[in-house]
């Protein structure tokens, strides 16, 4: 086999999560009352925009979660050896920018290194200047043509994207014509005037932007380092792409750990009252009064000690880094379930007195059946809203924790680590600004999209808005 698939712990959890979400979507499609709020989300412009952005991030993250080890060419035929480096499908797809490593810093779209070096010029004399980059702008005969070339590439990509989107719209209109037997012109008018229930125009605009940005980036990165390179000469664009998975993993896996705790304890406290309520309340009040960062730092340092004393448990560096990521999710989950638990307890207290719960009790329904048929389904909208809102907070928390030094493993590329290294770069003169900017932009777009999404979801699940529907 030319490669050996590697399943890291976080990969497995991410796959499970994706499977659950997919199953959930199929389940929702069959239930009109559950589908209705989601249809409403998709009918809002902000909903469409944020879903498209989130989906593109998820795609990047997913590609980055399919890990493997490449087989090494070996003389020995009996045993196949694999590289110790764990790669992902994303790494493989962007191989050029991953492997084309410069010496050190270079600015975005630069042709020369950022620092001066002693070098031998044609004549044989030594010169102290910015050397040409090894992998960027090699196709140009003269460096002065650079901007013309960049403009050319952007024009090309724009043209390609416009062609693509026009084709897509044409296909859509033809499909609708065939399906509903409408005239072509009415379909076109319908699209242009936005007469659909869904914001189709926004959808196509977003798709166009997405295609345009990706095509431009792909075409430019063939010849340039689009976002520049970092201290060791690695492409910052590559780092920004790799950070997506780390951010998403922290945001989603933490909720995966937090949810069962919050739901189970919150509902038990609210429904059973009495001493169970007292104990659970005591636990979360205590946990809440300990500073979260303290707990996280302690836990991460403990794990670090364990990893250092047992290096043989981890076959590759990636596995070590992954273990630390998982542990960080775990400890973040343990410190962040209390808020949701408190909300769920309060809501359960209200629901257990609802008349339909009383009716179920008078019918002789068991506690378990009341909890899972009456209480839990009526809490799900709160759970959902909290999860979506918490997500962006967790992505930011990762950045902060890594900056402080108790976040993910230093070998793992993450926004936090990028920002952490940018701390020194900002102190340089002239300033190396692109690393921080790239981390900032990619994180900002994700968090903004998540917040917009949370907003739309909250509106859609608001009972008052449902009444208006």
């Amino acid at each position, binding site marked *: 086999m030319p490669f050996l698939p590697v399943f890291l712990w976080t990969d497995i959890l991410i796959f499970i999560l994706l499977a659950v979400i997919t199953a959930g979507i199929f389940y929702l499609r069959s239930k009109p*009352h559950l589908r209705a709020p989601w249809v409403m989300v998709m009918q809002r412009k902000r909903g469409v925009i944020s879903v498209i952005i989130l989906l593109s991030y998820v795609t990047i993250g997913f590609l980055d979660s399919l890990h493997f080890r490449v087989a090494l060419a070996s003389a020995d035929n009996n045993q196949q050896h694999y590289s110790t480096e764990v790669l992902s499908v994303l790494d493989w797809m962007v191989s050029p920018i991953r492997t084309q490593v410069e010496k050190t810093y270079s600015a975005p779209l630069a042709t020369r290194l950022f620092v001066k070096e002693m070098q031998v010029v044609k004549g044989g004399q030594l010169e102290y200047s910015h050397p040409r980059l090894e992998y960027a702008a090699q196709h140009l005969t003269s460096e002065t043509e650079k901007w013309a070339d960049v403009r050319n590439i952007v024009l090309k990509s724009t043209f390609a994207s416009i062609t693509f989107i026009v084709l897509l719209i044409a296909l859509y209109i033809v499909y609708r014509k065939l399906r509903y037997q409408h005239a072509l012109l009415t379909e076109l008018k319908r699209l242009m005037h936005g007469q659909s229930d869904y914001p189709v125009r926004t959808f196509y605009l977003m798709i166009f932007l997405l295609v345009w940005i990706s095509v431009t980036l792909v075409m430019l990165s063939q010849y340039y380092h689009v976002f520049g390179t970092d201290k060791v000469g690695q492409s910052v664009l590559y780092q920004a792409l790799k950070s997506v998975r780390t951010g998403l993993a922290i945001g989603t896996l933490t909720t995966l750990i937090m949810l069962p705790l919050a739901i189970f304890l919150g509902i038990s406290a609210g429904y059973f009252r009495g001493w169970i309520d007292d104990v659970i309340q005591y636990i979360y009040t205590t946990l809440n009064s300990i500073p979260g960062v303290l707990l996280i730092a302690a836990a991460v340092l403990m794990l670090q000690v364990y990893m250092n004393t047992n290096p043989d448990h981890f076959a590759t560096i990636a596995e070590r880094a992954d273990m630390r990521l998982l542990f960080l999710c775990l400890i973040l989950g343990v410190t962040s379930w209390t808020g949701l638990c408190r909300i769920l307890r309060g809501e359960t207290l209200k629901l257990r007195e609802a*008349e339909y719960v*009383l*009716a179920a*009790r*008078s*019918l*002789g329904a068991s506690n378990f059946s009341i909890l899972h*048929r009456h209480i839990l389904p*009526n809490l799900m909208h709160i759970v959902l809203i909290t999860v979506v809102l918490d997500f962006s907070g967790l992505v930011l928390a990762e950045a902060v924790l890594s900056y402080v030094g108790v976040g993910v493993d230093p070998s793992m590329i993450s926004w936090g680590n990028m920002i952490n290294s940018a701390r020194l770069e900002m102190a340089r003169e002239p300033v190396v600004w692109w690393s921080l900017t790239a981390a900032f932009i990619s994180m900002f777009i994700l968090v903004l999209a998540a917040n917009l999404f949370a907003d739309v979801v909250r509106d859609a699940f608001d009972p008052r808005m449902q009444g208006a529907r």
Partner: protein
Amino acid sequence: MTSPVLLEVKGLKTWFLSKEQPFKAVDGIDFSIQQGETFALLGESGCGKSISALSLLRLNPYPASKIVAGEINLNGLDLLKLSEAEMESVRGRRVAMIFQEPQSSLNPVLTIGQQIGETLRWHFKLSPQEIQQRSLKLLDSVGIPDPIRRLKEYPHQMSGGMKQRVMIAMALAGEPELLIADEPTTALDVTIQAQILDLLKQIQRDTGMAILLITHDLGVAAQMADHIAVMYAGQIVEQADRQSFFANPQHPYAKKLFEALPSEQKRDQRLTVIKGNVPPLNQTFIGCRFADRCDLAWDHCHQHEPSWIATNERGVRCHLYDPTVTASAENLLKPSHASHLSDVVPSQIHALDIRGLKVHFPIRKGILQRQVGQVKAVDGVNLTLHNAETLALVGESGCGKTTVGKGILQLVEVTAGEVRFQGKVLNRLSQRQLKPYRGQLQIIFQDPFSSMNPRMTIEQVIDEAISASKFRKEPAAKTKYIDSLLERVGLRADIRHRYPHEFSGGQRQRICIARALATEPEVIVCDEPTSALDVSVQAQILNLLRDIQHEFGLSFLFITHNIGVVDYLAHRVAVMYLGRIVEQGTRQQVLDAPKHPYTQALLAAVPDLNKQELQVAVRGELPSPANPPAGCHFHQRCQHVMPICHENYPPLTVLENGHQVNCFLYEENEYGSTNTN
């Protein structure tokens, strides 16, 4: 007796505009109110009464709705032409408004004094002392005792009736010429309702203010109004003065409303129901809006919109009274049918025996949650329910009626006493032992909107009852059984896969009845099952309840505050006051010859269509069950109070034919009767 016209409304239309058809909540209403009179706007929910009232002050929801046409003339001032700033000098000052829910109309973080003072400051230039004095005078005029203390109190420290009085005081602060009262007593008990209505009348006498009363209650309208307009689907369909309206309602809708009221005279009949619902108002009407629900409608009604036919002082919007339209004769001759219904004869077998039932809720305080007292919600109730009998439990809100129902079903923990059912004391059984009896005791709740899980289909709702009761496990039989249940309660079987929110209140209540029937119960506790419903829908539900009692021989414990319903449905009546039964007997005994002063007061407070004078037979409000008064609980409000009433709780006195009453007036002791009255 024609005073000058104060308010004249012409062709007022308030529409909720949307992309598709506008929702025509108010669709061209005309009326005028004379100075000093009470004008009642009567109709079921969803007919546009409240939006009409809000539109008069231009307070209709904005930007959702818009006044698209019409004229509102207040003493020659066209309110629709005023600017928003000029409107502010009309609102509260010339036209004031009070709302249905006193709880939500007062700001909970401001004292009563601040809230009344604020209104005064808006409209008059007054010094703080003057404001204080005017506030005191206002509170005094609405009959609030100890106004100086009350000014410093917050709304939560007052009862519902008190809050409504404060609302009225605030409305009066601007000395308005017109008071719009939007269902002012709907959220209140009958005894309090009588007090508030009396107060409104008295204020009207004193100040000469006109009142626009919005109500769905024919009884309230009968007692208060000088003129009555009946609204239906955004239009006024009939308008007349009180005497002629109550003597002879003309529009078929108005007639039906009267016929749908439950009462003693209709005991042996099914109540008249108005089929269907108020039509959705986002359509273009071609014919008469009531035609689909009208028994008298003929082709002409479906094709032509009726015009307003005014005859001396009254008017009606119906083709039947239009001289230019010849009604087909058969319609006029159609008798108002009433199918006969034989009375259910209860057996003497006891279905349910309740002895000394007590439900106390502890009041806990402090960090350690020490018990500092208890709310005696139910404090020693004895009841016997015979097979196939309807026992009505009557009382004001807060007297513990609902808790009795929940205590019987073991939905709250019973503190003491016993609930005996089929030879077992239910409150001494464990949850597991109780399970076989669960299905045989069922409950129907007041609010059909909250008594079904919004996330379950109708099939799942009923299926839950069937699965819990261990009947009929195989799916085919189960589906058939669900179908038969739905059809039994008058719904189509194909609604099985729909969700509760798709149904109207009446339909949901039918589904709840189907769910209760699914376990083949012996006893059903009906906890105010019709009080959230309109009169016409209430009639449907009452008919259904009587039918199923016939068919299945069910016993009902019917918890209600509506005396009309009791009169129509009950065999025996128990009157509850502050956690205890004060009087118990057959319907005739309790309702026709009430003995306990409380029962007498309660019955007197019920607005009666026939006696058009208001009686306030009881003052004050229900004391707190956490701290019941010593002696007889009722002594503070009783007209016949005697010294002994302050000291001891009266023992049970059995009068003739098992009529039981707890009152010293009827006690036989060694000195003979203490009845001095």
